[in-house]
């Protein structure tokens, strides 16, 4: 059986290659290859720890703030410093703005254009999909880019700019807000809510959030025509193509928890495999048995992790390491976050059909509705003229980690300091979890498992099903290998 090599995948962040073997017109084996290595962990060695706040956002232009927040949390952990209430609220607003912009960009620019491909030309829904979602030319992109740009004015107000802000500090944010700026944030959120309700959902956000079962969702879909909103449009196509049976993953989900207020996250940390589990960062290990890294005897916890690239290693096929939680492959992302947190619709979807292309997209869109409502609340709780940032010295010898949720899932930074300098800095990004290679036991990563069974349509060389499955994870390859 010959291996087919597919790549590059565009409309993902960064460069990606997938190698697959077929049998009976279905994918029987898959290998995920991350072909770019830059070496941020090596760069950070020996630096002033505060300089991590300059370097790490530049790992990734799409998860830039998430990288900043993880680094700031790691430094704060080493300092033992807490944020004032305004600092938490402003940090949450900035991180939420990035996460929601990423969800929006993913849906409209990265994911939906695949349904406008010629391979679907004979489907009865094709003309509408093409008119709305075709890459560059479709009507949706022209509507979404201005709405997204206006929404990102929140970054101008709260973080100076995006991407690559230095406003996210261990003790809060460097940008305090005045009363009129708080008002402007509210009005930008109002405008964004209008876009979502009129264009994306065709319904009030509260009604979308209140969908509490698969039956309720099915009923909601039929209440209006597919063309009445882009969410319904997607659900209509998803039903026609049975996307709920495409790209089933490991069905073991993980979330680090995110959007803390008084230290307690809005979306809880934990695991889900049909039952809820506690998250224990001490049992995370990174395996490099199939990575282009100088091999070591055993998988290591990130505090002890080593990143020494080596282009020729037997059995290696990617620059990506293979993180495991207590030895297990985990899926991360909006679906994982919402199933762990217990949203009833997402729990029901996962109970009925597990992690799959359709459910991953539904969870992402639901999360847009959930978080905008929270952002409105956070904004109203900001108290101008009270502090946004506390200040603390950093000990010369310390260690700390920052574990948060980026748009694409669980992001962790582990940092050790010696003589006031970074001794070791290790990063495990969301797509490192989802797109990891095989581990020493030969167990494939989450995407490698999800691709098994992906069908070939008649006459296809590059199966569109593989494109859907890959993009359903919203991969960020520049984070994956940093």
């Amino acid at each position, binding site marked *: 059986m010959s291996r087919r090599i597919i790549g590059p995948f565009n409309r993902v962040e960064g460069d990606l290659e997938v190698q697959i073997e077929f049998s009976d017109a279905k994918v029987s084996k898959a290998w995920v290859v991350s*072909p770019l*290595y*830059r070496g941020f962990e090596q760069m950070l060695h020996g630096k002033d720890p505060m300089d991590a706040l300059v370097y790490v956002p530049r790992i*990734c*232009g799409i998860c830039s703030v998430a990288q900043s927040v993880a680094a700031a949390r790691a430094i704060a952990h080493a300092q033992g410093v807490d944020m004032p209430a305004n600092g938490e609220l402003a940090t949450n607003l900035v991180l939420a703005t990035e996460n929601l912009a990423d969800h929006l960009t993913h849906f409209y620019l990265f994911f939906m254009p695949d349904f406008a491909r010629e391979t679907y030309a004979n489907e009865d829904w094709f003309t509408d999909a093409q008119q709305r979602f075709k890459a560059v030319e479709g009507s949706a992109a022209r509507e979404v880019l201005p709405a997204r740009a206006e929404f990102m004015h929140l970054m*101008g107000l709260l973080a100076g700019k995006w991407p*690559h802000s230095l406003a996210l500090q261990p003790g809060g944010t460097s940008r305090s807000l005045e009363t009129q700026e708080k008002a402007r944030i509210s009005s930008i959120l109002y405008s964004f809510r209008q876009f979502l309700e009129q264009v994306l959902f065709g319904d009030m956000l509260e009604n979308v959030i209140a969908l509490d079962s698969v039956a309720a969702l099915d009923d909601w879909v039929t209440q209006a025509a597919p063309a009445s909103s882009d969410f319904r449009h997607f659900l209509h196509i998803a039903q026609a193509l049975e996307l709920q049976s495409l790209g089933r993953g490991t069905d073991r989900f993980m979330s680090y928890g995110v959007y803390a207020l008084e230290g307690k996250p809005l979306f809880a940390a934990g695991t889900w495999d049909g039952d809820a589990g506690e998250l224990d960062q001490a049992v995370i290990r990174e395996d490099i048995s199939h990575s282009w890294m100088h091999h070591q005897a055993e998988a290591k916890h990130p505090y002890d992790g080593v990143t020494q690239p080596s282009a020729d290693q037997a059995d290696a096929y990617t620059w990506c390491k293979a993180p495991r939680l207590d030895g297990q492959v985990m899926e991360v992302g909006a679906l994982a976050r919402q199933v762990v947190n217990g949203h009833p619709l997402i729990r029901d979807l996962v109970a009925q059909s597990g992690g799959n292309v359709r459910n991953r997209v539904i969870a992402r869109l639901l999360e847009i509705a959930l978080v905008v409502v929270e952002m409105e609340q956070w904004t109203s709780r900001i108290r101008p003229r009270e502090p946004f*940032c506390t200040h603390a010295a950093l000990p010369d010898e310390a260690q700390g980690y920052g574990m948060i949720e980026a748009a694409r899932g669980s992001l962790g930074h582990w940092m050790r300091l010696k003589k006031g300098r970074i001794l070791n800095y290790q990063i495990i990004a969301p797509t490192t979890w989802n797109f990891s290679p095989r581990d020493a036991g030969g167990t494939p990563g989450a995407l490698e498992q999800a691709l098994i069974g992906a069908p070939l349509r008649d006459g296809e060389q590059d199966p569109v099903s593989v494109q859907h499955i890959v993009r359903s994870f919203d991969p960020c390859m520049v984070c994956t290998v940093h």
Partner: protein
Amino acid sequence: MAQHRDSKLNLLWLQSGGCGGCTLSLLGAESPDLLTTFDSAGIRLLWHPSLSEQSASGLHELLQQIINGDIRLDLFCLEGSVIQGPDGSGLFHRLSGSDRPMRDWIHDLSKVAHYSIAIGSCAAFGGITSGGGNPSEACGLQFENSVPGGLLGESFNAIEGLPVINIAGCPVHPNWVTESLLQIAHGDMNRQELDEFNRPRSYTDHLVHHACPRNEFYEFKASAAKPSDLGCLMENMGCLGTQAHADCNIRPWNGEGSCIRGGYACINCTQPGFQEPDYSFTTTQKIAGIPVGLPTDMPKAWFIALASLSKAATPKRLRENAHADHILVTPGNRDKDK
């Protein structure tokens, strides 16, 4: 070669050793939005990694057709540095689905491009990707930090006769890119429009200091001491706005902001080598209490004399507000205070 120019300009955009942040910044273009800007400039997108439909083998065919001369390449944009490692092999970035290092594709495409454009400081000079010990052996298209050369060599000119146009920044402001593309489309890009590092003078003839909202604090040397303070960021917080070539405070970022407006230092991200300042980014390096990096064009003795004079004259309002995170003392009213 079957190349004839119709009324459209063909644009190809590739990414290599970078973070994709310049594209994400560009997607935020406003007045007009990015796609309308392309339309107005008569730009046809041959391929862009975040926007185009085509994937995988379709891209390889397209690149080969361009290199063969079957498709005219008017505008070649590279985002991210050129990766030469490990050991000069280029294998730290191989183009997916091909056996070749991305470096070699970039080289071949640059040779057939009418204009070659480096998007961001990584593509221009190596940028943040060449930080630390430069583990990936990254360089820019025609520079390695401030040294001419890079991948294409000092003497390289694209077909229209210009060197690589370096739209430096980390990331770029969306309008630095859209306005440069429009300038090219209108026939208004020439050597006189480029500065010593081949950056468009449209934005590098300015300093970040221009229109800085903290200018009054700067004038009186009323300085911030910690993040979120309102005072000038130059004396203690590492701000290089008085040296940095860019118009960040003249035109806002994301409609409202800039680094300094966000409460943090300008790190001079349009400058070759900005990624290794030899000291912490957010602490001002000083000798005998005087910042090492003084404002561009200003004689040191004058700076010291003016600084000590203005410090002596600092109004209470600025002295107190500089160390606060909101305005404590409001401006007086000269008529009323008489």
